[in-house]
């Protein structure tokens, strides 16, 4: 059939004949009905009546009809006059956008299309493609899903669900590339204070709880453009897209500190941390990259942490200070490599017998051809950047080797006194390292006195540390308590401690000669220590008067500038020679 979808209209617009496919779709009753009763014009949209079809002969029309009152179908149509007299019309239809629906609904076959119409072929080809497409879609969906999951994982902190360092980094780079150079952003670098003690005292579950609560607190102070992130163990960041002016920003940060310091409840227990915040305000393009920004906020945070629960806004001075200390760190590292750290020795003397009890070892940085620097110059920076361990080791080994040499020369210099830090004590292999180093020089633990600060034992009251002290004592080391009297301990609390020497802090010694109250306190302290069988050594003795008073009060061991400042090995040898000579003269 040439036109299976045609209708032929008479002069009144009634359907005279219709193609076989149309008759199948609409039934034979379509014949005789007015075309515009069966079909409605869809396009052109606002035309009505037969006349308007006559006005659009040969143009593309869209009509629609609802066979058997069911879902409407759209047809494409074109009208041409049947005869010269222009009375009848032939309207040829084709399936329009509803082709797919019709193929199934009316079980269309090739015979329902004009012989030269390729649509049914195209349709089946499309269908095949659609099926294949669906398969690929399924695969694509699955791949996308896993890609998304992987991406989410890589950009999300798994514990708290907020962003992680990588996503903060990405967002910072976006902000730095922001097209509006006037935009103002702020980065808060947040560190929880005392978080470790929550983990230690309440367990990791409680620690996690604290972290999650912190994340919630950050989220609560975020707008859509802002971003909270957890960028390390107990380190967070908050990125603000529209930074308010500085005063308000600082207030925001302080409010955040308050929110982060709220108690956290876990298993009927309540724990609490604090928070310090370093703040940086920046504009697009102002800083070269996100790493620099995070480093800058870290500088401000470092200053804030110095004060605990503080908020610090980054300043030029902070950057300068930081750069200075970075320079110092690399100088120190170089100095360690070049072995420029050396032991200085300060004698500890038993004035009753005139003998040398020992030498305290202190670290010095010997710059070739320049001054000798005391720890005041490098201790803080070296401790913060974990170089102090290396310096201590360098100084200690040199001191041990010097002691061994003196012993070989037959010099009697007593014990070497070394200062020990809390982190030394915490390190599990500290004892064995000491023993190995001593053995390497042919020395014994009994040659060494270890001095620890009162604060290590009492303020932190850490059982593990005290255990470690016992181990050291059992290994044969003598333990001395340094700076005694400056902390909260009293002599009575020392009963159970593995301590055999008390070093009385200089603050009790200086001015003793003129202050009667101090004299009484120091006197009582000495008497009690004696009763408990503790050895007492007074440090920081500078004047003869101080010495005489302490001797009168029963003290016999001293250290201080009155005798000698800390000096290098050569000088201490000379000093020892002179001391020995004087002693011989006195006794001779």
């Amino acid at each position, binding site marked *: 059939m040439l036109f299976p979808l045609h209708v032929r209209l008479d002069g009144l617009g009634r359907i005279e004949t219709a193609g076989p496919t149309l008759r199948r779709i609409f039934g034979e009753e379509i014949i005789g009905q007015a075309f515009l009763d069966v079909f409605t014009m869809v396009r052109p949209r606002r035309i009505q009546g037969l006349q308007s079809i006559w006005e659009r002969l040969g143009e593309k029309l869209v009509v629609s009809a609802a066979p058997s009152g069911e879902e409407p179908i759209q047809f494409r149509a074109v009208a041409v006059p049947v005869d010269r007299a222009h009375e009848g019309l032939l309207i040829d239809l084709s399936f329009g956008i509803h082709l797919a629906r019709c193929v199934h609904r009316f079980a269309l076959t090739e015979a329902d299309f004009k012989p030269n119409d390729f649509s049914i072929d195209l349709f089946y080809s499309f269908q095949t493609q659609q099926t294949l497409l669906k398969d690929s879609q399924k695969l694509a969906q699955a791949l996308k899903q896993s890609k998304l999951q992987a991406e989410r994982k890589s950009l999300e902190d798994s514990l708290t669900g907020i962003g992680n360092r990588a996503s903060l980094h990405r967002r910072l780079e976006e902000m730095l590339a922001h097209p509006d150079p006037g935009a103002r952003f702020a980065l808060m670098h947040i560190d929880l204070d005392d978080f470790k003690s929550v983990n230690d005292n309440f367990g990791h579950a409680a620690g996690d709880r604290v972290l999650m609560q912190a994340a919630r607190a950050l989220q609560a102070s975020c707008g859509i*453009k802002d971003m909270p992130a957890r960028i390390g163990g107990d380190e967070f960041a908050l990125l603000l897209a529209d930074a308010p002016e500085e005063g308000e920003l600082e207030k925001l940060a302080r409010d955040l500190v308050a929110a982060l310091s709220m108690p956290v409840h876990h298993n009927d227990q309540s724990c609490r941390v604090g928070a310090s915040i370093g703040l940086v305000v920046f504009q697009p393009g102002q800083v070269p990259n996100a790493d620099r920004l995070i480093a800058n906020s870290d500088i401000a945070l470092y200053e804030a942490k110095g004060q605990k629960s503080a908020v610090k806004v980054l300043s030029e001075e902070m950057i300068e200070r930081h750069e200075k200390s970075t320079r110092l760190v690399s100088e120190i590292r170089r100095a360690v490599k070049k072995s420029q750290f050396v032991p200085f020795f300060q004698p500890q003397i038993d004035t009753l017998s005139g003998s040398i009890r020992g030498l305290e070892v202190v670290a010095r940085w010997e710059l070739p051809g320049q001054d000798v620097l005391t720890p005041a110059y490098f201790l803080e920076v070296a401790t913060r950047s974990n170089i102090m361990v290396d310096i201590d080791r360098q100084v200690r080994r040199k001191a041990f080797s010097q002691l061994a040499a003196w012993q070989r020369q037959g010099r009697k210099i007593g014990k070497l006194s070394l200062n020990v830090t809390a982190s030394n004590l915490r390190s599990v292999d500290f004892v064995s390292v000491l023993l190995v180093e001593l053995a390497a020089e042919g020395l014994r633990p009994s040659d060494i006195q270890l001095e620890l600060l009162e604060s290590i034992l009492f303020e932190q009251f850490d059982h593990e540390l005290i255990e470690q002290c016992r181990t050291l004592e059992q290994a044969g080391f003598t333990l001395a308590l340094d700076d005694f009297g400056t902390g909260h301990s009293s002599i009575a609390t020392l009963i159970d401690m593995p301590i055999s020497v008390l070093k009385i802090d200089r603050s009790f010694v200086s001015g003793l000669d003129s202050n009667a109250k101090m004299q009484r306190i120091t006197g009582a302290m000495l008497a009690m220590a004696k009763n408990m069988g503790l050895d007492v050594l007074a440090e920081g003795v500078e004047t003869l008067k101080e010495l005489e008073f302490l001797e009168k009060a029963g003290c016999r061991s001293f250290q201080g500038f009155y005798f000698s400042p800390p000096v290098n090995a050569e000088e201490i040898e000379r000093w020892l020679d002179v001391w020995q000579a004087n002693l011989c003269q006195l006794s001779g």
Partner: protein
Amino acid sequence: MYGMVNEGIRTFILTNHGAEAWRRICARAGVQEAEFEKMTSYEDELTYKLVDAVGEFTGLDAQDVLKVFGKYWVDFAGGSGFRHLMRLSGPTFIEQVRGLDDLHDRIILSMPHLKPPSFELEDLGGETFLLHYYSDRDGLAPMVEGLLHGIAKDTGEEIDVEQVAFRSEGADHDVFRIRLLA
């Protein structure tokens, strides 16, 4: 709407604001998907939520977001391999606008669930036209304005568009007056 529309929004944000911005917008819109299958049909609701979240993010109201996005769409859809479909109607602005229904009809063949808009252009003479816009959806008229500017940008013409009838204000459908500028 088909995922292609949401993908358009996503690409727009990625290009202009970056990947983290998009993540934050999705989070705000409560949308799990961070990417969309162009040929899969999604709830209209999702697209509206995205538009709102983009508005919140960029500080624009939803209408302006739609305008900007409409203008961007022509580039995006054209770049997605559909440009030849647009070109079928002819090279000029007017031909393209007249061909919009055919364009969406052709798209229906590959996106059978499409609920396309319908347009009709009325020539008022003097390079002035009325464009009638019919849609099953609400609130997208501002996008049409953007789209028209997008087409004009594509064909290298300049136009002036003003909406003169508003369905939101009770009119039967939205109508735009378009003037071709020399």
